[in-house]
């Protein structure tokens, strides 16, 4: 799989604020990458740098192996976190306008706009003004705008924020279709369950640094912790595994070092009380996330 986009050691400061100090991100063609991180981590700043909306202080952005330029950027579809549409344009007109700006001939832009307006489920509102649409429907238009020129990289900044379940499903479907047709997709999100449903590949950043990157399974396995969860019959005994700590908010669950001997821990648990069920596994994505950024 070819590497469509590679972001290397990106640095960016705004005056005294260090927004990025070492962000790495790889998005191969035909793959979807979840770009995760807490508020203020630098996700939007990274994305805006990819689009050339910001000048960065150091680092590089490569497109198919070469430094990215305005020609390559024409093949990016972008959905900014702060949504922006012309309130007084009509839905179809709006999508077609951005198609033409991206270089499509007028008639091709018009027919593509038709197709995308239908695909995002807005055919009935084709000639409505943007300002007459609900926020969620405006977001569908925003998606159509980012796709009308058939980009080979999609950069979506929190595409699911503010969407109802039906719109989330449409958005997910479209993203999956795009990946299947060879498009590289990177999206940011705070909804980790949604991310796991959509893709195996994630990059996690915090405080302007890439903390981890890989498949969800890899990240889980590379964690220095494991989760030991024990269900007792009757009252839980006052027991904590050696080197472990109780997980707040989950009764009977403990974090233990990854190099613990699982069978020994289970034997110790059984000695402390009557065990109904027991599990020993790597932490889930949300735990990993907290471990990495906390």
């Amino acid at each position, binding site marked *: 799989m070819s590497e469509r986009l590679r972001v290397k050691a990106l640095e960016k400061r705004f005056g005294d604020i260090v927004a990025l100090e070492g962000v790495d991100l790889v998005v191969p063609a035909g793959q979807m990458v979840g770009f995760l991180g807490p508020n203020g981590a630098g996700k939007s700043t990274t994305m805006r740098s990819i689009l050339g909306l*910001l000048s960065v202080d150091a680092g590089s952005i490569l497109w198919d192996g070469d430094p990215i330029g305005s020609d390559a950027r024409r093949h990016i579809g972008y959905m900014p976190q702060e949504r922006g*549409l012309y309130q007084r344009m009509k839905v179809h007109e709006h999508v077609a306008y951005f198609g033409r700006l991206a270089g499509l001939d007028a008639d091709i832009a018009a027919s593509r706009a038709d197709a995308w307006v239908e695909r995002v489920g807005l055919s009935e509102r084709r000639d409505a003004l943007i300002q007459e649409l609900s926020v969620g429907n405006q977001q569908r238009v925003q998606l159509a705008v980012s796709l009308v020129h058939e980009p080979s990289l999609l950069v979506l900044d929190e595409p699911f924020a503010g969407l109802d379940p039906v719109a989330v499903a449409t958005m997910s479907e479209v993203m999956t279709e795009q990946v299947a047709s060879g498009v590289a997709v990177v999206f940011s999100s705070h909804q980790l369950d949604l991310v796991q449903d959509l893709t195996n590949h994630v990059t996690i950043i915090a405080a302007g640094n890439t903390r981890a990157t890989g498949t969800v399974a890899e990240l889980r396995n590379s964690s220095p912790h494991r989760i030991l969860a024990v269900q007792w019959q009757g009252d839980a005994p006052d027991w904590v595994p050696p080197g472990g700590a109780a997980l707040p908010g989950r009764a009977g669950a403990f974090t233990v070092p990854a190099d613990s001997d699982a069978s020994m821990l289970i034997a110790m648990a059984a000695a402390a009380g009557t065990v109904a069920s027991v599990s020993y596994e790597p932490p889930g994505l949300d735990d990993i996330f907290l471990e990495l950024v906390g």
Partner: protein
Amino acid sequence: MSGRSQILEVARREVTVRARTKAFQVITALLLLIAIAIPVAIAVWPESDDLEEVDLGIVGADVDVDAIEEQLDALAVDRFDFSVVQLASDEVDAALIDDTVDVVVEPGPVLAWKDEVDPDLGFLVDSLLRQNSVIERGVEAGLAPEEVAGLLSPVEIGERFVEEPDEDVAVASALAFVSLMTAFAVPQVFGNLAMMSVVEEKASGVVEVLLSHIRPRTLLGGKILGIGFLAVCQVAIVLLGTLAALLLTADVDLPDSAWSFLPIFAVSVLGGLGIYLTLFALLGSLISRQEDAAQVMVPVFVPLMGGYFAGQIAAFGDADNLVSRILTFVPLTTPLLLPVRVARDAIAPWEIVVSLVLLLVAIVVLVRVAGRLYEFTLLHKGTRIGWGTAVKAMLRPDSVR
């Protein structure tokens, strides 16, 4: 897609989206209505208003009231409108006292007035009486009445002025004033539109999507082109309306200066739009919210107001005064003063050429500087950007981008 076709796309969007707003349509229609109504009103009113109505009494048995009325109206041309009544000799005093008549011709002939003579009116009635007695005497001397009338037919007399007639000064001042108002109002109205259009894009995320496709200066260029085109259309519609109304209702003699005036006026409107739309758009890019518009607009109002006051003096007073002459060469005020001084025919050809060249140079420089500033200011979020920060950012070369 080339930068040029993107500029046209941006321009076309500005035109279609703005032209279909109710506000734009209503304002254009209203302006057109006013532009047509004024010449029509001028044409309809003055004729009837200028004529002074006069009631003339005549004492005598067989008086042809209609014939005399006709004769008097012919003599009075466009000064008086006569209605003639026949009076008995004992009615004269009462009629004069209660103002039912202004003057009475009594046998003799004697002109009876109320308490004072109206010299113009007296002269006219006097002329009529003399004319009629000449005809009578001619007939007595054996001439046919038509022959006498022929002898009395008016002589054509020409006119020559050693100074410009007042009427031409009035027309020139009117032209100058209309051009001044246009040059003052149009850049403000459409400059505001340009500014709001920039703020609209900047306040929402739309600018980010735009700039992922096109360069800031392309966006700026398209916006100025589109809104400028709208402005030119509106001015043209209104002017053509006025012209048509004038030609259809009144026969206006345009002074000779009008022919050099029209092209200069057109160029000034274009130049004024070029320079002020760019400035307003740039100001719009310094702010992120419409509420901040008023405070950044101040620097643009200074030259506009200055040019307007100087233009007023040049339009109605001394068109050649020193301040007007200087401001004609300052690109920000050229569009206001140049057409005024041309309309007043108070400018040397070299002044026209030099001021237009300076204006053109200023626009080219401004558009280039604005294009660069725009790259920085457009994506800056949050607080208002000071000019200093903006200029510094412009001069600092970008690293990776």
